[in-house]
Each structure stands twice: as C-alpha cells, then as structure tokens.
C-alpha cells in the first residue's frame, strides 16, 4: 500500500497534482501535506488527477474537501480528473459531485478551472 504524489506546474497559473495508489487513513496525511504546501505558496487553482488512484476512503475525501475549502477562501478552485468507476461512485453517493468539478481528462479539468 502506498501513495505517490507528483506536483507539476501547468500553464495558466495553476498546478496539477498527480496521485497514484491508495488514499486511506495511513496515506492521506502525505496527500494533505502536498496539497497544503502548494496552497501555502499562493496557488489557488488546482487540478488533482485521480486517474491512477485505485482506492479512496473518507479520510482521502476529507483531504480533498479541506483543500477545496482553503482555495475557495482565496477565490480558487479544485477540479478532479477521475475515470475509475468505483471512485466516481464514492463521489456520487456522498454528493461530492456537486461541490467538485469532476472530469474525464486533464485537458477538460484544466479548461474548466475558474
């Protein structure tokens, strides 16, 4: 069980966070730290790519919600890239599809950033 986090700068004053692996109570602090560091640098427009995430639980969702709350305080936004049906289902049943922008591709997520 592991999580890999890669942060890269993208055109348009935004950053992409690539996550790979499983996000649970053990690994979510690493994701929280990575997202927090970017926001601390003053970046408020993020795309978080979940295409290579095999599993996420409520602690992972909590980290994403926390990041979204922080950037929204600065007029920012977080869009997600998610193609895994099981993970999309978790966002559906928790109602988080209504607060995150969820896209099938990174291009679409980037274009939709406010």
């Amino acid at each position, binding site marked *: *069980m592991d999580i890999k986090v890669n942060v890269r700068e993208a055109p348009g004053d935004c950053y992409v966070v690539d996550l790979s692996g*499983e996000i*649970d*109570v*053990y690994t979510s602090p690493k994701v929280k730290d990575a997202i927090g560091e970017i926001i601390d640098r003053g970046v408020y427009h993020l795309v978080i790519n979940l295409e290579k995430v095999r*599993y996420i*639980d*409520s*602690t992972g*969702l*909590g980290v994403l*919600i*926390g990041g979204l*709350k922080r950037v929204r305080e600065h007029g920012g936004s977080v869009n997600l890239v998610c193609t895994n049906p*099981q993970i999309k*289902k*978790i966002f559906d*049943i*928790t109602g988080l599809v209504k607060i995150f922008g969820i896209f099938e591709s990174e291009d679409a997520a980037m274009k939709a950033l406010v």
Partner: protein
Amino acid sequence: MNQPVEITAEDLVELRIPCRAEWVALARLAVAAVANRLRFSIEDIEDVKLAVAEACTAVIQHANHGEAIALTCETSLDALRIRVRDAGRHVGDRARSIDLDEARIAGLGVFLIRTLMDEVTYDVDPETGTDLVMVKRLHGNH
C-alpha cells in the same frame, strides 16, 4: 487474490490487527479475499473493502491505540457478515476536542458504511468500545 471456490457451509474467518493506520490495508485485503471466495462481484467486493476500512478508521480515530481491532467474517451461501470490534475505552470526542470538519468527515465514513452494506448495526460505547456488525448479501450480479 485466491480463485473463487464453492462455499458449501458457513465458515468463520478471524483477524486481529493493531489499532494503527498502517494495518487498515491488511483488513481491506483480507475481507476482499473472503468476499471473492463467495463470488461477490468486483463492485460488491470494493463496497465491502471500503466499509471495513471505514469501520477500522473510526476505531483508530476514537480508541486508545494500544488496543487491537478484531474482525470476524462469517460466510454463508448468500451473504457475508462482518463484525468489527475493539475492546478499548474510547477517547471522548469532547476530550479530544475534534473540530466540526473532522466530525463531518467521520460522519461521512459512517454514511458510506450504511450506504454500501445491506444491514448495519453500530454501537459505540465509551466504556466497551465499538461493536459494528454489517452484512453484504450476494446479489447474483456476478
């Protein structure tokens, strides 16, 4: 993961893990293996994995970390019954002074368990710990 096999009788699988975050993945894998043997669909196996992980996470976040988490999986021909228990005294939410956001996320975990499983009874007592029983039925969609 093991190949599915015919379940012809009720079986009992027990696992005890330390009450720490790094062991939750093992609990997930163990219940997934049991559900796979019952020929649950991939989607239902994922549901069971998440429900068990949420139950373990709730225990870890509220119990004293010295205690173990006991998982019991009872199989039958058409269902998987999972019991998650810890025997530790819980650190009260007031004593731990959790904030509103943390409480909401904890509520999300319980919501997921109740949504993904077919039957759930959930008892959290500050003195006796957590006792969660959940059932996932074989829906014949495999």
